[in-house]
């Protein structure tokens, strides 16, 4: 019975469609928010609004991002959103996403956006007042010139999330900076490592994720109920400063513990004032406290949170990559410190290198752990990741092969007179150790690194095959740039920076050129095979 009833309905529906086909496609038909959401949004945000793939994509259900002003949601739909954002999920109240929502303003009409947002803003437990067409029209007009997606932090600054109206500071955002400073740095010249919404509206270092060598900057808006003179009292370990409406009010300078409180006064008008607090922690204990006193206030209002529990750093996803026993690991993703075509090689035994297939040179050497795939192997895998290990030495950052017409000529970033550099790949030998092959002009080069575990270094044997007709003149090999170079005690050996020594063995009588932070080997090549050996060793 159930089946026939089902079919009956289906035929009725069919009749309806047949009798009025134009209705189906009429653009004037009121837009159906749920249908549009299902069509265009549900792939990522999931039909139940909880974020696709068990919350691997940001949920919309009960999201504070939808609350308050509708402008924030409208702007995200119109122009898209990228970069790190924090969205609470069922499992993690501080879940961080770093994905891309493409802009939909070009694809969706204003009535479609209204329908989708009204559906989203009032489904799955969300309750918000309906938005009107003119709000979308107004938003579209106001940001018509915008061509880039919103960055999470930028959007929140313009449309702060006020999850708690009793929060002392509204729309408070904190930024965490990694670095070691003994005086307060110019944060405007630094890039934050993380950005958080401080829902409680209190200055707190709970989100620092570290106990030393970090800085934080908080920005938000302070509601002022009466015109008058206000006093701010700041204390911190180590230094800090408070700005109100871009004016420095007071500052706790340099390194030191709590108990160095400083106060400052400023006249404020009723309404919202911009507040910015800067803080840095060198080492040892860490804390900050801030209070405000003003007209009509019985006692000072605390603007800072309680001292955080020693919370562990929010872990970046970590996926260690290690060489197999007696084997060799390879990594070709984007390695910080070398070029996009870097090839990371990790030998079992804790010696590692990065060969640049762009520059045809050894650019990085390091010890111990090889690499961490956590950055590149989660979400979309943006950015460069440095080697995982220790004692990283950056040998070169320019094309390694070039011609120099005089010993003082500049080493050019475009390869110094070499018309053709061509990487040809690598062969794996015993224990999967690679031999790199490449061409420099008409020369064929094979470049063989061998790890020296006892001597803590790498021996690199370069064989240059020169065709009988054309031994090139003035060809040079860049061994190091960017590090202080000094002659070492033994002949043909040089100290590169503080930790690395290189010993050069070439069948040539011409010594290497030691220049300002450069070590360059002139090559006297003969037709046939020419061999150079470089022994790199950590000191």
């Amino acid at each position, binding site marked *: 019975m159930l*089946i*026939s009833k089902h*079919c*009956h309905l289906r*035929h*009725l529906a*069919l*009749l309806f*469609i*047949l*009798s009025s*086909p*134009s209705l*189906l*496609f009429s*653009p004037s038909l009121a837009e159906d928010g749920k249908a549009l959401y299902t*069509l265009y949004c549900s*792939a*990522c945000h999931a039909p139940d609004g909880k974020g*696709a*793939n*068990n919350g*691997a*994509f940001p949920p919309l259900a009960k999201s504070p991002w939808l609350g308050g002003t509708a402008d924030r949601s409208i702007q995200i739909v119109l122009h*898209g959103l990228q970069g790190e954002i924090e969205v609470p999920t069922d499992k993690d109240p501080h879940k961080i996403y770093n*994905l891309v929502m*493409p*802009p*939909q*303003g*070009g*694809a*969706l*009409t204003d009535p479609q956006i209204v329908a989708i947002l009204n559906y989203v803003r009032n489904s799955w437990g969300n309750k918000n007042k309906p938005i009107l067409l003119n709000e979308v029209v107004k938003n579209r007009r106001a940001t018509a010139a915008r061509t880039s997606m919103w960055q999470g932090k930028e959007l929140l600054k313009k449309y702060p999330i006020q999850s708690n109206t009793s929060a002392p500071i509204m729309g408070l955002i904190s930024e965490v900076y990694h670095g070691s400073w003994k005086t307060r740095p110019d944060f405007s010249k630094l890039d934050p490592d993380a950005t958080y919404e401080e829902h409680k509206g209190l200055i707190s270092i709970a989100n620092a994720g570290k106990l030393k060598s970090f800085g934080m900057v908080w920005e938000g808006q302070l509601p002022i109920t009466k015109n008058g003179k206000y006093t701010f009292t700041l204390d911190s370990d180590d230094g800090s400063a408070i700005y109100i409406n871009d004016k420095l009010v007071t500052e706790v300078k340099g390194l030191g513990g709590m108990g160095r409180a400083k106060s400052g006064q400023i006249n404020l008008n009723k309404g919202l004032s911009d507040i910015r607090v800067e803080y840095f922690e060198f080492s040892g204990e860490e804390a900050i406290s801030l209070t405000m006193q003003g007209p009509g206030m019985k006692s000072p209002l605390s603007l800072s949170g309680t001292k955080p529990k020693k919370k562990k750093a929010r872990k970046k996803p970590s996926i260690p990559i290690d060489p197999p026993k007696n084997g060799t*690991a*390879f*990594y*070709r993703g*984007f390695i910080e410190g070398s070029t*996009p*075509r870097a*090839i990371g090689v990790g030998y079992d035994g804790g010696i590692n290198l990065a060969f640049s*297939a762009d520059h045809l040179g050894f650019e990085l050497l390091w010890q111990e752990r090889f690499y961490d*795939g956590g950055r590149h*192997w*989660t*979400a*979309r*895998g*943006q*950015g460069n990741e440095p080697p995982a290990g220790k004692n990283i030495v950056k040998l070169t950052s320019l094309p390694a092969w070039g011609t120099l017409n005089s010993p003082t000529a500049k080493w050019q970033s475009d390869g110094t007179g070499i018309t053709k550099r*061509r*990487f*040809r*790949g*690598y*062969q*794996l*030998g015993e224990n*999967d150790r690679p031999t790199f092959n490449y061409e420099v002009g008409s020369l064929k080069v094979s470049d063989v690194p061998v790890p020296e575990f006892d001597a803590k270094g790498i021996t690199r044997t370069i064989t240059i095959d020169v065709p009988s007709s054309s031994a090139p003149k003035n060809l040079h090999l860049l061994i190091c740039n960017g590090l202080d170079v000094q002659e070492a005690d033994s002949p043909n050996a040089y100290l590169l920076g503080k930790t690395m020594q290189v010993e050069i063995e070439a069948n040539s009588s011409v010594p290497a050129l030691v220049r300002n932070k450069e070590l360059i080997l002139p090559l006297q090549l003969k037709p046939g095979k020419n061999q150079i050996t470089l022994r790199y060793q950590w000191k």
Partner: protein
Amino acid sequence: MRSLLLTIALLTPLFAAPTQEEFYLREEIPLPEGEVMEIGSIALMPEQKVAVTTRRGDLWICEGAYQDDLSKVKWTLAHRGLHEPLGMFYQDGSLVLTQRPEVSKLTDTDNDGKIDSFETISADWGINGDYHEYAFGSPADKDGNVWVVLCLTGSFNANSAWRGWCVRVTPDGEMIPTCSGIRSPGGIGFNADGDTFYTDNQGVWNGSSSLKWLKPGSFQGNPTGNIFYPNQSDIKPLANQPNDKSRITTERERIPQFIPPAVVLPHGKVGQSPTAVIHDHTSGKFGPFSDQVLVGEQTHSEVQRVFTEKIKGVYQGAVIKCLSGFRAGIIPMRLSDDGTLFVGGSNRGWASRGGKPFTFERVRWTGKTPFEILEMRAKPDGFILTFTEAVDPDSIKPESFSMAAWTYIYQSKYGSPEVDQATPSIKSVKVSPDGKSVRLYIDGLVKGHVHHLISNGVKSANGGELWHRDAYYTLNEIPD
């Protein structure tokens, strides 16, 4: 009239709606335990071996993927440490791989199951560290060339050499810039005639995703990469740059090299992120769709079927949904000579309906032919449909079909709404003597528009219903 139709409808024999399981058997292939197998490319090898690469850069060889009992598959790790490979094929004992920085030839020279030779064939395009600078590579064409489509930087800019271009890499490593106008590809392959097609994703200058024909020398629509025309000499730069907020049909008049998308895959309705491009070369081993193109769909975890024809020098045709229910977002596909379709996928960073983080699956035809629209060809005054089985002539009436048409704004903004809506009207229909073709006579076809045909009333001679009722034909040209 209404009650009469209702009566007829109720008297019609009732058949259960066709389901995929009747026609195609989809099976998950067990993966090596504990491994993250986000499959980005597949190559079919001799002796029924199948090679796959992962987004993390691993290369695995699978044995037993053709056997009935999939629990016996054996996986061998051939290498770890490639850079996001998105295209692979087997050739003369080697695997030729398109990875982010280069086209490479990988060989196991000592036959121990591990790759020990990595020969760089070409690394002549730019990469700058941006994760979105993907490179998708084709199998070898008839001249042995690998076609590579190079995604824009961040999918918006051309900050590295040849971003937004299709290049061909010859067997001796020469890189030949071939087409400009690419935005964000998802896959590349050949049709049955050996012409090269790729999928490009909805975004800037792409009102919708589509399947595009890479005619050498052509412009594919996104002008960002046009800055590289002066860096080559084989192709004449465009006489005009495209106008913003226009229509493709309008801009084609101004830019002769502009090849319109062969088949638009309407955004949302058909999919959101098309990927692999292959064609059915099996002469019937994979069902009735010989020589047609199959397109992967990442977001919807589907495989779609495309029929194309060439009218006035450009390809056009229809997309019809085909297979669904895959467990992750589809990226690569390969179809073996025996009619086994291999599908791999991942949903890391881009969501998909299939909720698993990664999958490897195979699909085989059960031998039962679905009642489907096999071909949809344009006529000056309508379309002609060919079905896989004879139709019930009584079910073929003008009101058994409905049609809507629209196009997209061709613009620098991301995507486009459906615009310029039209409602072509089906005036009359005619069934061929063998019952397998139906001629639709239509008023109001619109050049350049997607024509969405819904065949709700059509029944087969046996009373069966169509497996898929919706066909979306992109009418770049109306035939004379």
